[in-house]
């Protein structure tokens, strides 16, 4: 169905990238490079992210995985230090195109960060926040969406009797699921998760992982994680980045049992390279 393309960059580094058909992909990253000041952070990345799947980006600190995630949500827009080339297409449309409003893009591509960041308001108002910024809704319709988002984020049963309590009364794991519910409420097509479980205890992490699995029937998930076992557990595809380059991109089953390149093997097995 999909084949792996081997390529050899001018510097002699090799990459092995699975070719996802365009018809099955939601995002296409095409020759993306990015510099912070003079410092290259991403170097000529090209890959397609499949729809209704979980795609994990793994790699050592500073490999560019979070930078890449931020590009997908245009979080670098206001940073003058950043220079960027190449294209990112969301359902075929350039996210940096003149007709694309950032707010609209961020509704379609939601993002959740490492540390849960609920707003200082009630649980209900947190989830309602994004909705209120959009078209006005009748209260009943809004309540329905909020319930749906909380159910989808596997939080409803734990908070349904205290929706008007402060979000700060929730545990870390619950706060993170609340933030995910807030993102889901505006019905994004793509959900970006940057180390969503690294600040959580193992049980809360597993709940987030279970949630990620369940969400992919509705949207496409991109997960950045330091935790390789987590990537192995939840993702369908995994991209390994190192030094701002895409080294290997493959079905997770293949990457964790039989990687094609030594650099990948060394990283996932914890060897010195």
């Amino acid at each position, binding site marked *: 169905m999909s084949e792996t393309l081997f390529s050899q960059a001018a510097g002699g580094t090799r990459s092995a990238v699975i070719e996802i058909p365009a018809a099955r992909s939601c995002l296409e990253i095409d020759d993306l490079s990015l510099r912070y000041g003079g410092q290259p952070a991403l170097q000529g990345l090209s890959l397609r992210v499949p729809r209704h799947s979980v795609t994990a980006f793994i790699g050592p600190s500073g490999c560019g995985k979070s930078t890449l995630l931020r590009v997908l949500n245009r979080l670098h827009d206001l940073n003058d230090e950043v220079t960027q080339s190449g294209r990112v297409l969301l359902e075929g449309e350039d996210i940096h195109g003149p007709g694309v409003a950032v707010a609209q893009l961020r509704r379609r591509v939601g993002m959740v960060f490492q540390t849960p960041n609920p707003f200082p308001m009630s649980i209900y108002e947190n989830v309602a926040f994004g909705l209120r910024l959009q078209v006005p809704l009748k209260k009943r319709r809004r309540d329905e969406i909020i319930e749906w988002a909380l159910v989808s984020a596997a939080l409803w049963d734990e908070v349904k009797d205290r929706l008007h309590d402060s979000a700060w009364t929730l545990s870390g794991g619950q706060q993170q699921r609340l933030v995910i519910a807030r993102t889901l409420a505006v019905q994004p097509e793509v959900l970006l998760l940057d180390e969503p479980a690294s600040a959580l205890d193992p049980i809360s992490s597993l709940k987030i992982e279970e949630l990620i699995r369940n969400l992919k029937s509705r949207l496409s998930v991109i997960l950045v994680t330091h935790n390789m076992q987590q990537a192995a557990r939840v993702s369908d595809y995994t991209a390994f980045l190192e030094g701002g380059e895409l080294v290997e991109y493959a079905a997770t089953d293949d990457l*964790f*049992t*039989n990687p094609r390149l030594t650099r*990948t093997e060394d990283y996932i097995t914890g060897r010195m390279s």
Partner: protein
Amino acid sequence: MDITSDTHSQHISRQFNQELEELKTHLMAMGGLVEQQIQEAVSALLEGDSRLAERVRDNDKAVNDMQLKIDDECTRVLARRQPAASDLRLVLAVIRATSDLERIGDEASKIARNALSLIEANQGAKGVVEVRHISEHVRKMLRDALTAFARFDIELALEVVHEDDSVDSEYASAMRSLMTFMMEDPRAISPVLNVMWILRALERIGDHANNLAEYVVYLVKGLDIRHVDPEELDEAAIKRQD
């Protein structure tokens, strides 16, 4: 990608290196023991040495204990290290290999038991030439399979896979000639049956050595060649370096 036995021991965690090394060392020790069991079982038959045969029979417990010990070590590595890629394949290959070695141990003690019956009945040595010949053949297969495992040597592993066919045909021809012999002399049926069981055990040992060789291909290349006809193996693809 291909792994070699050198690159395999470069984990950042030295403890992990050591655990994986121990798995291999213990597997080789188990392999050495079962190889000795076969050799002694066959010698017992050829030399009519009933004490040696009894020793082989009694040593089977040591083989079983080694299987339990190595499997236990593998379980611990899986639980504590969550190995991936070639490390995972190594642990799986070792688990599978201990099971085949344990079965080889069973076959060796089967040979010893049949040898004891023959020695006790003081029966002549019909079929002994075939036993000697096939036993040398399968012992070489086993030794090569273990060497291939220790060195991550695909070429040697594939040689073993091809050897198994010739063992099978030697076994079939020995069986035919013993069958003819039984028809000619019905009094010889009982001792000839003992020899047939021995040949059957040796042929099974060849199959297990073949399995070990297949695990080496899995370990090094990540390709599962079990249930693939050796004639249809795409050796060029197996040997190709990514």
